[in-house]
C-alpha cells in the first residue's frame, strides 16, 4: 500500500476498542462501521482505516481487522481495492418509521406473553439478550462469503 498518508486519503472514522465489553474484537469493529454508516459519518466511497493504522493504534491482531473487513464485505457494505484499501460500497437502509411502529406493536404483544408465563423484567432482559447473542452468532458464523442482504426493517420477528 503505497498511498501517501496525507489528510485527503485518511479515513473519516477511527476505531476504538472496549476491552471489557465481552464483545469479540472483530465484532466491535464491524459494529462501529455499521454505526458510522447509519449515522452518516461514512458515505459511499469513503475509505476504512488501513489495517496497519488500526493495528498500530489499538494493538490488535491484524487478522482480526482483516476478519472484520471480510465480514463487512460479505454483508455487501464494503469492497476491497487491491493496493489501495477497503472502501464503502453499500449502505444501510434507514429503518422507516412505519416499520418501527409495527415492530413496537409485535414486541408489546410478546412482552405480554412473557409476563403471563411468569418472567419479570430481569428475566425478560436475560432471555432477550441471550437469544439475540445466539441469533447474531449464528448469522455471522453462518454467512460464509457471498453478498447478503442488508438488514431490513420488519425482517425480524
Amino acid at each position, binding site marked *: 500500500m503505497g498511498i501517501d498518508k496525507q489528510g485527503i486519503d485518511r479515513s473519516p472514522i477511527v476505531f476504538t*476498542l472496549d*476491552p471489557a465489553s*465481552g464483545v*469479540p*474484537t472483530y465484532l466491535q469493529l464491524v459494529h462501529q462501521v455499521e454505526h458510522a454508516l447509519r449515522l452518516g459519518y461514512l458515505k459511499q466511497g469513503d475509505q476504512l482505516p488501513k*489495517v*496497519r493504522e488500526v*493495528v*498500530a*493504534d*489499538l*494493538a*490488535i*491482531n*491484524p*487478522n*482480526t*481487522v482483516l*476478519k472484520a473487513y471480510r465480514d463487512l464485505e460479505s454483508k455487501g457494505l464494503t469492497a476491497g481495492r487491491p493496493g489501495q484499501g477497503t472502501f464503502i460500497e453499500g449502505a444501510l437502509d434507514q429503518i422507516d418509521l412505519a416499520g418501527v411502529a409495527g415492530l413496537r406493536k409485535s414486541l408489546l404483544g410478546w412482552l405480554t406473553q412473557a409476563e403471563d408465563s411468569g418472567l419479570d423484567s430481569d428475566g425478560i432482559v436475560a432471555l432477550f439478550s*441471550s437469544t439475540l*447473542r*445466539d441469533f447474531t*452468532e449464528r448469522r455471522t*458464523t453462518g454467512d460464509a462469503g457471498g453478498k447478503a442482504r442488508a438488514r431490513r426493517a420488519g425482517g425480524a420477528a
Partner: protein
Amino acid sequence: MNVVETRDLTKRYGKVAALQDCSLAIPEGHLVAVVGPNGAGKSTLLNLVVGLAAPTAGEVSVLGGVPAGSAAALDAIAFVAQDMPLYRSLSAVDMIHLTRNLNRHFDTEYARRRIDDLGIAPKRRAGKLSGGQRAQLALTLALARHPRLLVLDEPTAALDPLARHDFMAAVMTAMAEDGISVLLSSHVLAELERVADYLVLISHGQVRLDGVVEDLIGRHLLLTGPSLQARDPDWRIIQDISTSAQSHLLVEIAESSTHGVAPGWEGRPVSLEQLAMAYLRETTSPQTSLAGVAR
C-alpha cells in the same frame, strides 16, 4: 507452510520432564500465544524452537521443515528472551552495530529510525534506559532483522500498561506490514483475545489445547441448565460447576454434532479467557481434545 512443527517433542532436565510428547503443527501468519502457569513448559518450548535447547526426544522444525537451531533457522528467526537481555554497557547505537555484525541481514536504517521515533537516546547505555525503552530496543533489534518468525518469551511481564500497549502495537504492526508470524508466551490471559489468533495451552509440560482461536471458540460452548437435565452425549465436558439445582458446563462439541443446543440448556459462546482457564484447571490426566484425535 507450518511455521512451527513438532513431533513427540520432549525435553528433560535431569529427571524432570519440562515438556513431554508435544506435537504441534502451527501454520504461518498467526500470532501464537503459548499460555500456561509458571513452570508449565512455555519457555522450554520456545527455547527448543529457537535452538537454545536441544530435544531429549522427538523433533522440532521451523519455517516449513528447517531443523530448529540450524544456520538457516537462526537466520530467519528473531528471539527476545525474558527480561530482554541486552549488554547493559552498550548504547542503542552500539547494539544496532552489534546486531548488524552478528547477522547477514539487518535493516540499519529501520532500526535507527525506530529508535528516533521512540525517543530513545541513542548514545545512552542500555542499562540506564527504562524497562519499556529496553523492551522496545530489544524488539527493534529483532524486527530490524526482518525475521519470518518472531519469538517472544513473556515480553510484557515487567512492563507498565502503556509500555505494554506500545510494545504489542509494534509487534502487530510488523505482522501487518511484513507478514511475520509471532510466537509469544504469556501467563496473563486477560489481554490475549485482542492479540492472539492461535492458542497453545501448556500445563505441567503437556499441551492441553491448541488450535486457531476462532475454531476453538466455535467448538466450545458455555451451558447453563438444571443439574438433573439430561446431557448430550456429543459433549465432552471440560468444566462442570454444579449445585444441587443448577449446573454450569463448559463443553466441547463434537464436529459430527449437527443439532443445536440440547433442550433445557441455555448456551452462550465462551471467551478465550474462560476457555483457557477451564482447560488449565483440568487436573485429570490429559485428554486430547476431540479434534486432536482426528489429526
